[in-house]
């Protein structure tokens, strides 16, 4: 069935709205701030047989755009073993080896039937506050198996024919430190799926299933065409880039991530050969995550591409067997964010060689998950868990953004006042970090310094999961690298740093002791010598740059500009 271009344009907007509205419903209803404030969730429509992404919302977390197809496929396979999906079924699971990302992300997948036939799938994913495991908040840098990270739920039917299976619910709620939060989030996700069903019903009533089906197919083709044309406009060739992860949280060895980017006509090939093999610690990722990550990087380079599986058709992705990027169960994957951020960095670095005018320097490159937890005097448990920001990379048009969020996320940071009112801590510093930006004709964005004091008389325990402690975010087109991540904490009378630099489990702090996190700035764009002296002088005047660093990076010309 072919579609007139007007109906296609109208349906494209209508279907995206459905996914957006599912996002909005969950953001409003969710209990935990990681979903409600940081929007660490996503919704979409997926192909009935393959699970491929048909439509995804604009507001959900970028990394989920690519990864959800694998979650849906896992449910398709499971359902097939059980006699196929029935109307009113909803599967739930968090197994990262089947669905990508990590165990904190709870996925709900629901078949959508039309006239007795499976039309497509709807799915909802959201980051729950706590799903058991050794570390509150589930970022366990010392995990050597998934079992130490969280409870592992394979795809199981939470709802059968419209009836919630309370047995399943009971297992879920017994395996979290924060059952109230988990139940609130779960209800929000079920509500979002209900809403998706109602909206699809109305859309199909209006246009007919055949027309909508044809529009979905056409939109996939369109995404493919757009990427083919964008790639064809770039020169043919092969470019390589490498970078390193600090370590896996267990052993001190640095771990290479390598990519070769090859352009041949309208096709793009990304080969990750030479990347480190699988490791003991939790920075492995499952293959679905790696593929989704490629999608995120490509969409940042070509931001107008639509969010559907058609984008992946002109891309060949080669992921070596037994590598860090193709982990098998039960390898731990809790720190997947760090690994995919580094993959994005190497893709950006390689793409910068192919198309310097489009290049984006590396952003700060770590999620910096910091968990401070303890018990109050009255015995109540508290967990302050948050991700912290850093500088974005520079581009040909502008300096990098100061204190941005990670490229895989749109998460915002909670206000200091909300954190201080909820947890017994006081922030002593919440500031930009001078001299953290990579120099260049355009400089990187600045990272931040956060210093947090424990006020609770029982003290607290601190867990930290970061990266970029040893290898700084790189510049492009001759730009310099940003500053490394730096995490320190008070012990005894002085300050200490973790032996593994960017990862640490269960250090005890007394009342009045502090931790300090200084995050990386972004890489620069173009040679530092090409930065106008006026801009350097301004950076010094604003305190973004110390005088010494200005001299070292740019020479002394800026001093005349200031005079």
């Amino acid at each position: 069935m072919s579609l007139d271009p007007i109906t296609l344009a109208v349906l494209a907007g209508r279907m995206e709205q459905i996914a957006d509205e599912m996002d909005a419903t969950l953001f409003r209803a969710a209990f935990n701030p990681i979903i409600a404030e940081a929007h660490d969730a996503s919704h979409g429509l997926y192909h009935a047989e393959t699970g491929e992404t048909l439509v995804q919302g604009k507001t959900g977390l970028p990394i989920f755009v690519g990864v959800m197809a694998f979650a849906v496929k896992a449910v398709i396979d499971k359902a097939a073993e059980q006699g196929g999906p029935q109307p009113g079924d909803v599967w739930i699971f968090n197994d990262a080896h089947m669905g990508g990302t990590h165990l904190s992300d709870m996925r709900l997948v629901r078949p959508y039937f039309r006239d007795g036939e499976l039309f497509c799938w709807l799915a909802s994913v959201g980051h729950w506050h706590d799903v058991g495991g050794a570390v509150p908040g589930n970022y366990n840098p010392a995990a050597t198996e998934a079992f130490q990270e969280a409870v592992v739920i394979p795809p199981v039917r939470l709802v059968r024919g419209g009836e919630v299976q309370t047995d399943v619910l009971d297992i879920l709620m017994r395996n979290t430190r924060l059952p109230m939060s988990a139940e609130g989030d779960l209800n929000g996700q079920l509500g979002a799926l209900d809403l998706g069903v109602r909206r699809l019903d109305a859309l199909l009533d209006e246009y007919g299933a055949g027309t909508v089906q044809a529009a979905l197919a056409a939109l996939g083709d369109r995404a493919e065409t757009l990427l083919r044309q964008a790639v064809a406009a770039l020169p043919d060739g092969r470019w390589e880039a490498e970078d390193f992860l600090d370590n896996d949280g267990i052993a001190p060895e640095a771990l290479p991530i390598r990519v070769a980017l090859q352009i041949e006509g309208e096709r793009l090939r990304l080969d990750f050969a030479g990347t480190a093999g699988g490791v003991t610690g939790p920075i492995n990722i499952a293959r679905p995550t790696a593929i989704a990550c490629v999608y995120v990087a490509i969409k940042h380079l070509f931001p107008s591409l639509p969010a559907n599986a058609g984008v992946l058709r002109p891309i060949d992705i080669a992921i070596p067997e037994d590598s860090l990027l193709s982990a098998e169960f039960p390898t731990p994957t809790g720190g997947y964010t760090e690994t995919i951020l580094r993959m994005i960095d190497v893709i950006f670095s390689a793409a910068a060689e192919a198309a310097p005018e489009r290049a984006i320097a590396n952003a700060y490159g770590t999620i910096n998950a910091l968990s401070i937890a303890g018990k109050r005097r009255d015995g109540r448990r508290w967990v302050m868990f948050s991700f912290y920001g850093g500088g974005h990379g520079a581009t040909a048009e502008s300096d990098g953004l100061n204190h941005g969020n990670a490229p895989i996320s749109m998460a915002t940071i909670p206000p200091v006042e909300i954190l201080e009112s909820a947890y017994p801590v006081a922030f002593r510093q919440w500031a930009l970090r001078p001299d953290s930006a990579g120099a260049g004709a355009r400089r990187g964005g600045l990272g931040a310094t956060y210093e947090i004091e424990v006020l609770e008389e029982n003290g607290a325990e601190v867990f930290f999961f970061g990266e970029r402690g040893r290898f700084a975010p790189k510049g492009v087109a001759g730009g310099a690298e940003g500053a490394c991540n730096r995490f320190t904490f008070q012990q005894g009378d002085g300050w200490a740093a973790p032996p593994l630099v960017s990862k640490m489990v269960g250090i005890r702090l007394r009342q009045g002791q502090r931790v300090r996190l200084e995050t990386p700035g972004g890489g620069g764009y173009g040679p530092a010598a090409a930065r106008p002296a006026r801009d350097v002088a301004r950076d010094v005047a604003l305190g973004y740059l110390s005088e010494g660093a200005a001299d070292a990076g740019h020479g002394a010309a800026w001093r005349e500009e200031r005079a």
Partner: protein
Amino acid sequence: MSRRIIGVDVGGTFTDVFSLDTESGRAGVAKVPTTRPDQSGGFLAGLRHEVESLGEIATVVHGTTAGTNALLERKGARTGVITTEGFRDVLEMRRRDRPRTWGLRGDFVPVVPRDLRLEVPERVLADGTVERAVDLDAVRAAGRALLDQGCASVVVLFVNAYANPENEARAAAALREIWPNAHVAASSEILPEIREFERFSTTALNGYLQPEVAGYLDRLEGALEGEGFGGEFLIVQSNGGVMSVDTACRLPVRTALSGPAAGVIAAGYIAESAGFSNVITGDMGGTSFDVSLIAGGETVLSPQTAIDFGLVVRTPMIEIATIGAGGGSIASVDAGGLLQIGPESAGSDPGPVAYGRGNDRPTVTDANIVLGRIDPARPLGDGLGALDLDAAKAAIRRHVAEPLGLELMEAAEAIVRVATSAMAGAIRLVSIERGFDPERFVYMPFGGGGALHAGAMIAEVGLARALVPRYPGVTSALGCVIADMRQDFVQTLGAMLDELDLAALRDRVQAHVDEGNATLDAADTGFAAREVRVELDMAYLGQTHTVAVPVSVEMDGATVKPVSAGAIRAAFEATYRELYGRLLTSPIRVLNLRTAVIGKRPKFDLATLAPDPGARVETAAKGARPVYAQGAWHEARVFDRLALPVGARIDGPAVLEQPDATIFVEPWLAAEVDAHGNVLLTAKESAA
């Protein structure tokens, strides 16, 4: 004494004036070009259009974009910040967001640069404890340093000042002793609400706007008085209420959405007078389409907005959803073969291809011209010659018809169809997505282009009917005349309901009411009534988002009576159940108190705007012209809209024209003129 009230809405292109003589009931409208950079020229010209002498005017009410423009163009005053040690960069760090999801491009320049943000020793903890008293010598030294740097305005931004304003208050008092003008403010004075970035941003933007907006309003007031004006001068706020000029000079950040808010207020009143209390408004301008919803006669307020990336203003404002689909939005076919409207726009300058000012890419207005819905011989804009129909056709042919393999007229209709589909999406966003059934709503288009697409909104969203006000082009100016005087207050409480200090709560409400009443007392306006509204932001413990719970507060004269915890709980549960369906068993938390004190201004009877009793359909008829719709040409009758009599019924296809707007009555629609001169559009079968 004169009883003339005049509303003036200054927009980017035109200054709209609506005047009402409350004695005779006579109303007048005028549209004059906006003058730049000093808008007072156009403002006065508009007033003179309506009155012989400014001495005849009792009240002037102004909807202004001066504040918004100063923010967007970064033309506010040099402003200094004095803040808590360790928190110098809050304004610049924002909430760790980025401008767009995809692309990782762009940076952010705060309105107060880092070298004008100085730290002083002080600290208040989250429970309100003063951990460290403010060092006033350091405050004075910082103030002098900022003055030396040329700052015209200074704000005090201390962490946790919402919980205890003592340090901020002492710092502000010390600064006021040395600061040479009135532009000193503390964050707890502007917005005593938890969340430091939002509070600091609102306060800093207020300081940044103060000298600019105060200067503009002073000039304007001076010019008015210079021409003999001796009445009251009021400013519309983003919340849809008016405030005195003094308040506006102190809180200019509250003018951020002044003009659009007035439009929504007018729409609500016009619709209510016509018998409709559920309204969706649609304001179609050159680059955007603004939608707002009024349910049961109440406008929906949103707590904050971002004027631009990182420029957050948190103050109650009428919720307006905006999409980038206006008359000037450009139609194109992308590399993937999809017809797209916008986000690029030709705006009003150069404007559509047919304006002949240099744009050669087709816009929505060009499509309407080619379809015959806009008369090319009768241009809408000021200072335009005849519209260039052939150029519009050529542009559509080249950029849309040929790439899509469509005929010219199909392509023109496709452009309008895709644009109206996006507009319909914006309407769904504020209605269906919030649980409102569009069938219960009347659609009120305003602005010049809105009424061209009213039929499409009825068809696509399932709205029951559309009501086109008599003067759609000056709706915001009319809203200025009828808006109530309103002051909003907020105070963070941050307590569990079971532990809430009810006496302290009563005292807080009383303080808000006293301050609000003092403002109303100071106004020259006689109020028809006064109203106090109290809301509590509440949630179950552990929940992130709060719900706004209306709590009824009884008054004994001007004294607020205490409220019981039981009544608050019942109000919360009723609201929560309505929003989420079922209640939870968790403890309940009260985050913020919000109070609104409203002085109801007397309303005028819209019947004064009604058509002349002598009007006749025959004399309003202006012939016919071909219009293309639903894939075919139709011979549409053309009428002078303002000359149609009350009760006239015109079956589509028809075009109703007036100086600043065109109504297209699609072939399946019927138009009827109501007692106030509004045009009601309904499907023919349901109109019979």
